[in-house]
């Protein structure tokens, strides 16, 4: 994939991108949660 023949390398690339996307999603979903005012 993309000139990288070893799947253990390109899987690592896909995982790194997937984790970065998970961080973005987590931030968006929980954008207004955990406010100090509502004590949640």
């Amino acid at each position, binding site marked *: 994939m993309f*000139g990288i023949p070893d799947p253990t390398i390109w899987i690592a690339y896909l995982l790194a991108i997937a984790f970065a996307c998970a961080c973005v999603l987590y931030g968006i979903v929980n954008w207004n949660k955990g*406010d100090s005012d509502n004590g949640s």
Partner: protein
Amino acid sequence: MAVDTFTTMIVILVYLVMILGIGYYGYRKTKGAEDYMVAGRNTHPLVIALSYGATFISTSAIVGFGGVAANLGMGLIWLTVFNIGVGVLIAFVFFGKRVRTIGQRLGAVTFSDLMGKCYNSTFIQYVSGIIILVSMPIYTAAILIGGARFIEVTLSVQYEVALLGFAVIVGAYVVLGGLIAVMHTDAVQGAIMAVGMSLLLVLTYVYLGGVTTAHTALTNMADLVPAALTAQGHLGWTSMPSLGSPIWMTLVTTMVLGVGIGVLAQPQLIVRFMTAKDDKALNRATLIGGPFILMMTGVAFTVGALTNVYFYQKSGEIAIAAAGGNVDSIMPLYITSAMPDIFVVIFMLTLLSAAMSTLSSLYHTMGTALACDVWGRGRSCALSLKSNKYGIFIMMVVSIAVALLLPGSIIARATVIFMGLCASAFLPVFVNGITSKSPCVIGAKASMLAGAIVWFLWTAFFHAAESSALGLCQYLFGVPALLGQPWSACNPLIIALPISIIVMAVFQFRHNRNMA
């Protein structure tokens, strides 16, 4: 360097004025110990995320590990997986919120203070402070060396002058402005790093003819791997090393696991969680943290490996040969020789920012550990601004001395040593301290000491990379390491961390049973 010296000087001057101006802002905003130590516990999510990321990513990650990727290949990208998955996602979501809540409730102002208060033990605070003071100057010195070496190459300044100037400028705004200055300068430096690393990635692929073309060219260079590396399991720069080979052991146990897990127990990062006002700030910071780290280590490791294609096409040599055998010189050499002149200045600011942001945080952590946790432990001077400023100044001088004594090619190795010791000694105690209802103090003492002692014994007598350099094993037993392959390539963390986890778990289990 091809860039006009006058232009470079102007850019650096503007940059330094801006950074020192932010330092002054921190100085003006600092009214008491809580401002100086934990930035008033009211930091903006963007500042938390960029400060965490910029502190996390140093010249070590870009220059040191980029050079390692040039030597060992793209397998290092597994470290990026851990950097984001463990270092951001798990760190912020599972640990960050607990640290913030507990830190605020107990009024903790440093990592060691937090540990001491979680376990209600000044001994825990004292020992963790001592471990920070012993291990962190080595890592700090590595950051200093990385920054000074790059200044030396790009500005043609004498190495010692570069090192001293760099160390003192950063020390000035940390001493004066405390953590408010540190985190806000970090944020600006993080933004510069994001721009610089994005450009580095794009320009590298453009220069090498595109993503697939560049990777294919690197794949086709597998037969150029030096025989010495092939004999140790290197299978090419776009392949993982042979399973269980010495290079595989080094890559997986030392680089990927050692640094990837070690990040969870780094005091200078954990303190960042205590600067958040509420959990909402940490949720929002997570959004920025993940992509930021991807653009840092992901780019450094990818471009690091691809420097082999550039140097081979340019001079017929692979990267390590072009850099005269010094791994730490590969990335600076690539940037100064491959990038357009105008961007060299941006990359210089990127690397300066990476070094300064990490260095400032380490100064602050070491100085407050000395003044608050070791010297002032249990006394009123622990929270004195004056004593903490003296603490930071003293640790700055110690770090400069260590940097002048350390040998070359030390950047990545020193990072691994620091993170390995931190994780072995702190991680089980830290996790247990913030998750247990009634943390066992004897277990914490035993786990911390067991982790530190086993880590040291494995480093001094078994892990060949360090034991041969220390010479203690050779002196006592006449051999560089007591065991052969694969144990001599197994990182101390892999042995010490499970032992400290078991010790903590056994004591905590007994403690819980007795309490029931």
